[in-house]
C-alpha cells in the first residue's frame, strides 16, 4: 500500500505520454525548531475532541515534474533546487523521492 501510494501522483496528468520524472519533495520544520502552525493545529484538534493527538508538525509537500534528464542528474539538480529554493535550510529539512512519470 505504501508502495502503491508512492507510485501514484496526487495530481492529474499521469496518463500516457513520453517519460520524465516526478519528484515528490517533503519539506519539514527542523527538529527542535518551533512550528507555531503545528502547535495551533494540535491545540484545535484537542478542543475538537481528539485527545489522542500528540505532536503535530506541518511542512510542505511538493510535486515537481522534470523532463529530459537522467535520473542521476535529476537527483543532483533536485537536491540543489531544495537547497537553493524549495527548502529554507536554516529552519527546514527536506527529503525527496523520484519516480519515472509520463511528461504531459
Amino acid at each position, binding site marked *: 500500500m505504501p508502495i502503491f501510494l508512492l507510485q501514484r501522483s496526487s495530481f492529474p496528468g499521469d496518463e500516457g505520454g513520453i517519460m520524465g520524472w516526478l519528484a515528490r519533495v517533503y519539506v519539514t520544520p527542523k527538529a527542535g525548531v518551533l512550528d*507555531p*502552525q503545528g502547535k*495551533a*493545529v494540535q491545540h*484545535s484538534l484537542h*478542543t*475538537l475532541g481528539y485527545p489522542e493527538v500528540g505532536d503535530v508538525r*506541518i511542512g510542505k509537500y511538493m510535486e515537481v515534474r522534470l523532463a529530459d534528464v537522467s535520473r542521476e542528474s535529476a537527483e543532483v539538480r533536485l537536491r540543489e533546487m531544495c537547497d537553493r529554493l524549495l527548502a529554507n535550510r536554516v529552519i527546514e529539512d527536506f527529503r525527496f523521492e523520484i519516480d519515472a512519470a509520463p511528461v504531459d
Partner: protein
Amino acid sequence: MRWGVITFPGSNDDAQTAFVLERLLGESVVRLWHKDESVDGLDCVVLPGGFSYGDYLRCGAVARLSPIMRAVEAFAQGGGMVLGICNGFQILCEAGLLPGALIRNRELGFSCRRVHVRVEEADTHFTNRCRRGDVLDIPIKHGEGCYIADDATLRSLEAGRQIVLRYTDAEGRVTPEANPNGSLGAIAGIRNARGNVFGLMPHPEHACEWLVGGEDGRKIFLSIIAAQGGTAETPAVPTSSKVLSGP
C-alpha cells in the same frame, strides 16, 4: 438595531468595527467571544477582519470550528443577517455559509491599498444605499483574497445575482490591473442564495471617516440598517474629523 461583533483569537478589526457602529453610527453593539454559544436577540452578526488563529493551516479554517460558529450557522439558517469582512469572509467560506474559497493572492504577497469596487447589485440587504454601478473607494489588506469557485458555482452565483461587488478601476471598468488579487471574475464580495449572508474582502470599517480612509464604507453599514427598517440614529459623536475616540 442590535449588532454582534465576534472576537476570535487573532481578530484585529473587531474593535474598529464596533467603534464604527457605536460611535460613528450610534448603533448598539454586543461584543461576542468565540467561546460564546448564542447570538440570540441580535439583528446582524459581524465576523471581523484579522488573523484568527494566526491564519494557520488555512485562513478561517480553525475559527469556523469555534463554539460561536454553531450559533452563527443556525442564525444564518434562520434568515439572520451575517456580515463577514476579510478574515470573516474567509471564515464564512470555510464554514460553507458562502460558496467558493479564498486562496493566496495572485502576486502571493500581502497587499494593503485602496481599491475601487463596483456595486453589481443594489437591491440587497447590504448595498441598498448604493446605486447599481456605483464605484466605492475602500481599502483592502490581505494576503489570501483571491476568490475561486468551480464553474457550476460561478454560474449559479451569476444566475442568483449573488455577486455583489467587483474590483474595478476608478471609472468602474473591470481590468486586470484593477484586480488586486486575481479573484475569479474580479469578485470582491458575494452573498448567499437566500441573501442574508454577505462576505467581502475590502474593509468598509476602515472607510467610515474622512480623516482615515474615506467614507464610502458607511454605505455598507447604512444599507444593513436600512434593510432592518431602521435609519442610523444621529451619531453619538460628530462624525467629522473631530471624532473623539478611536478603538
